[in-house]
């Protein structure tokens, strides 16, 4: 089976306490978005930090698109919950940062991001600083910044939490369209189970003491989703 992300016996400790113990799974290419859910403190963000390459497992290995994760890189950009924009750069320079890292010249960068800026509703605000933008716009910049480099895999750390319902829905649809157009994958960390069920094709439920449950396939019909949501809630409550 051809998988895009695989964990092979991954263990990770934090302050000598085990966060993950022998975590192993494979997600097939057909399951484009992997959701990570669980109670607070079970290691959702740690999971993302391991996939990004920011943290290294004490044991085992992680592969994304067949390549072992060893360092951070543009193959797996992160969209953060708190936007994490560079406050000294204007909007367009924030969006273009990944392209600058790729070595594109200023004019090439600006031309390359015009479409993303249009789709994310950021056109006309290019020269504003992050402090001059609303929270929703800042989050759209965060998405545009990650999408601009057209990565194979995007890591999302609760990116919709700070958005209003309307903006969140708009960005979600745009984001899903982008993923399918570019055949990209994503790891979505979320505390919102509805969001996870709607957006993800597979869900990894993290539990205390390094335990986990993998729901390998999320049905997309509304009745199935309701029952899957109920099942997920039960599992979390266990």
């Amino acid at each position, binding site marked *: 089976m051809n998988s895009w992300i695989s964990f092979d016996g991954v263990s990770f400790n934090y302050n000598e306490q085990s966060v993950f113990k022998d975590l192993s799974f494979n997600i097939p290419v057909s399951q484009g978005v992997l959701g990570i859910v669980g109670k607070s403190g079970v290691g959702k963000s740690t999971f993302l930090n391991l996939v990004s390459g920011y943290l290294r497992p004490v044991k085992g290995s992680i592969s994304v698109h067949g390549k072992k994760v060893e360092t*951070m890189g543009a193959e797996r950009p992160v969209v953060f919950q708190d936007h994490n924009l*560079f406050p000294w750069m204007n909007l367009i320079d924030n969006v273009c940062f990944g392209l600058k*890292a790729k070595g594109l010249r200023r004019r090439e960068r600006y031309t390359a991001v015009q479409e993303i800026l249009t789709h994310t509703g950021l056109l006309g605000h290019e020269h504003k600083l992050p402090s001059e933008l609303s929270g929703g716009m800042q989050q759209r910049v965060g998405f545009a910044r990650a999408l601009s480099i057209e990565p194979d895999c995007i890591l999302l750390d609760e990116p919709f939490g700070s958005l209003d319902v309307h903006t969140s829905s708009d960005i979600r649809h745009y984001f899903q369209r982008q993923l399918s157009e570019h055949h990209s994958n994503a790891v979505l960390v979320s505390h919102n189970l509805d969001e996870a069920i709607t957006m993800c094709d597979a869900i990894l439920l993290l539990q205390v003491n390094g335990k986990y449950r993998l729901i390998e396939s999320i049905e997309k019909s509304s009745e199935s989703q309701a029952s899957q949501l109920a099942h997920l809630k039960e599992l979390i409550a266990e």
Partner: protein
Amino acid sequence: MPRIRGLIGILLFAGLWQFFSASNSLLLPPLTDIISVFFKSLVEGDLLRDIIDSTCRVVAGVCVALSIALPLGILSSLWKSLPEYCSGLVEMIRPIPPIAWAPIAIIAFGIGDAPAIAIVALGAFFPLWFGIVQGLKNIKGSHLYAAKSLGANYRLVFTDIIVPSVMPFFLHGLRLSVGLGWFCVVAAEMLGASSGLGYAVQLSSLNLEMERLYTYLVTIGLTGYISNSFLMYFDTRYGSGRHE
């Protein structure tokens, strides 16, 4: 409005000065006399020459301090423990007033511009160094994380993340450095120079030329004010103003 209030404050002070100068004209010579000496020195060129000499020494001293503090700062961004290794020595030297080094500076560099520049450099170094160290401490890990996850190499991280993060602290340090540079240059010129604002203050006090003394004191204040305003512009444009 704050500027108008500031101007009113200066005018009130000038009025009080003029009033009290009638009772003790040696200690407080009439403002009209001071203004007259100011314009006379300006026309004759003495004042302008002294301003230029002192400014050159401050600029040279701050440049020397920058040429030491900046490479140390760049090294510190690579080797995080460097500021800790330097802290003991820095904390021991910092409390010594820069002017206390004057005899050593004169023995080392002789008479002329060099000792004054060395004293300015010593005084200007510490605010710059502390600004850079503080700036390095305030680099957000989350910004480095974001940059690296977008594929930035060390050069890009340095130019686009580290430098802008440190910039507000560096510019604040630079403002303090230039201010301290003016303190130091006046003191250094009073001890061992043959030109400059400090030298003129010393000469005027020895000759009991009070109008000339006050003319130079006001000039020192004005030059400091102008250089601070100049640096404030950069601070607002490239420093804290971009980090809100």
